């Protein structure tokens, strides 16, 4: 009756054997993504919101704007905060309670992907230098975990930002008029950072793992890049990579980044 919490060794063996023959359980190629379905405007009260489905994996990402005080080292720049919640609703493996490492890492990887690529023009989010700036909240919720929440969250974050509208701001009372949106978008750059994660299973590199594949992956590398320019990176899990393998990861991700961009392009206008 209890759900299996990890993938069994036997299944793992079979996945590795299949991969060594260039095959995957669901018939995909190594560098092939599952179908990506995006739906925008899932929550009216958010300034921007999307549902991203990659196969059976599903996340919600919402954008809220707030007013805050700028950091002392950037008095003329807006702020950004990314939080992620791995809801117990989305998998028997997630539990309620304070955020654990996976959700913290997820939020931080997405944060870096957006921040370091300079996707958001923070200077335009300054209201009054040194006193008042806009804060962009990017909140990520898992709805169904079937592997690769990282990339789903990354795609969710950029599409939600692209679709978000600034709320009205009452300058006299220095208050946000929530619920009243302007036609103005959040100031974003043209280069859209997409983060893609490659996993090494046995000696094979794959993209967009299912839950089972992710369970037996010993190494992953997440790279955020826009049009071939890499701006953020994180290697996760225990196993080491050789330089040769790392170069392969780079080539693979650069290629896949373009493929994914084409798939989601129409939601980024």
């Amino acid at each position: 009756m209890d759900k299996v919490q990890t993938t069994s060794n036997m299944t793992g063996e079979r996945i590795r054997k299949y991969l060594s023959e260039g095959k995957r359980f669901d018939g995909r190629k190594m560098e092939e993504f599952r179908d990506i379905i995006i739906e925008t405007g899932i929550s009216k009260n958010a300034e921007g919101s999307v549902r991203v489905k990659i196969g059976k994996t599903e996340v919600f990402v919402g954008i809220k704007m707030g007013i805050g005080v700028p950091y002392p080292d950037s008095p003329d720049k807006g702020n950004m905060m990314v939080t992620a919640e791995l809801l117990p609703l989305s998998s028997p493996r997630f539990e309620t309670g304070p955020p654990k490492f996976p959700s913290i890492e997820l939020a931080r990887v997405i944060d870096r992907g957006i921040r370091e690529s300079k996707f958001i023009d923070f200077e335009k989010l300054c209201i009054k230098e040194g006193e008042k700036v806009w804060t962009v909240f990017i909140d990520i919720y898992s709805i169904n975990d079937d592997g690769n929440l990282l990339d789903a969250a990354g795609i969710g974050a950029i599409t939600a930002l692209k679709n978000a509208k600034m709320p009205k701001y009452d300058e006299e009372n220095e208050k946000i008029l929530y619920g009243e949106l302007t036609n103005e978008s959040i100031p974003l750059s043209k280069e859209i950072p997409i983060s893609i994660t490659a996993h090494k299973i046995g000696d094979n590199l794959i993209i967009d793992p299912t839950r089972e594949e992710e369970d037996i992956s010993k190494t992953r590398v997440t790279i955020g890049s826009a049009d071939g320019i890499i701006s953020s990176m994180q290697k996760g899990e225990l196993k080491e990579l050789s330089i040769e393998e790392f170069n392969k990861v780079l080539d693979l991700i650069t290629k896949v980044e373009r493929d994914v961009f084409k798939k989601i392009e129409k939601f980024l206008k």
Partner: protein
Amino acid sequence: MTTYKRPDGRKHDEIREMKAKVGVIPNADGSAMFSFGDTIAIAAVYGPKKMHPQHLQNPEKGTLRCVYNMMSFSVTDRIRPGPSRRSTEISKIIEWALEPVLMIDKYSNMVIDVHISIIQANASTRCAGINAATMALAHAGIPMKDLVSSVSIGKLDKELVVDLNKEEEDFKEGEGSTDIPITFTNQGKMTHIQLDGKIKSKQLKEAVELARISCKKIYEVQKKALKEIGEK
């Protein structure tokens, strides 16, 4: 006597458009979505499974554990993600609303987890949550005597209306707004009632009757959605 006009043009006993769907989260043992107009709730059920930690196990009967959670962007003023005092209380209220219809006496030392998330809020979120949760429990195949249906009754100034929206919840004129969320089993037993505001006992009795009639309508929507998934 009907002087109050509802901002969205509904009749006083009219519920907002309801949508119900079963099986929205593939990982869960049971799941459902329920919405009243712009208020959307999803619920997932995991279990029955062994209760951990062990000291929480009850050898006499199974345990129902509910968690109600609002997404940070579900409301106009962003709320901090994670549990709050409000959500903790609502979670317990939902447990009390649901448990009477569950037949979990034999699930000793086991737990059934119900997770409810509000995606978009426009008042009556706990009612939508309860409605989604009862469907998710049925979808998970948990033995149940009955379904429950939940609705909020409002008293705006002096008049009773069904299924308050946010604008009505914030109604300030006259005697203001009284919000009474009520949950009924289909058999007509009350499993949950709360009240915020001011009302006389005679009118409260009327409100309860009104809720009973409204819950029957909600029950039909829930039943239909459950049948649809059964036929697939």
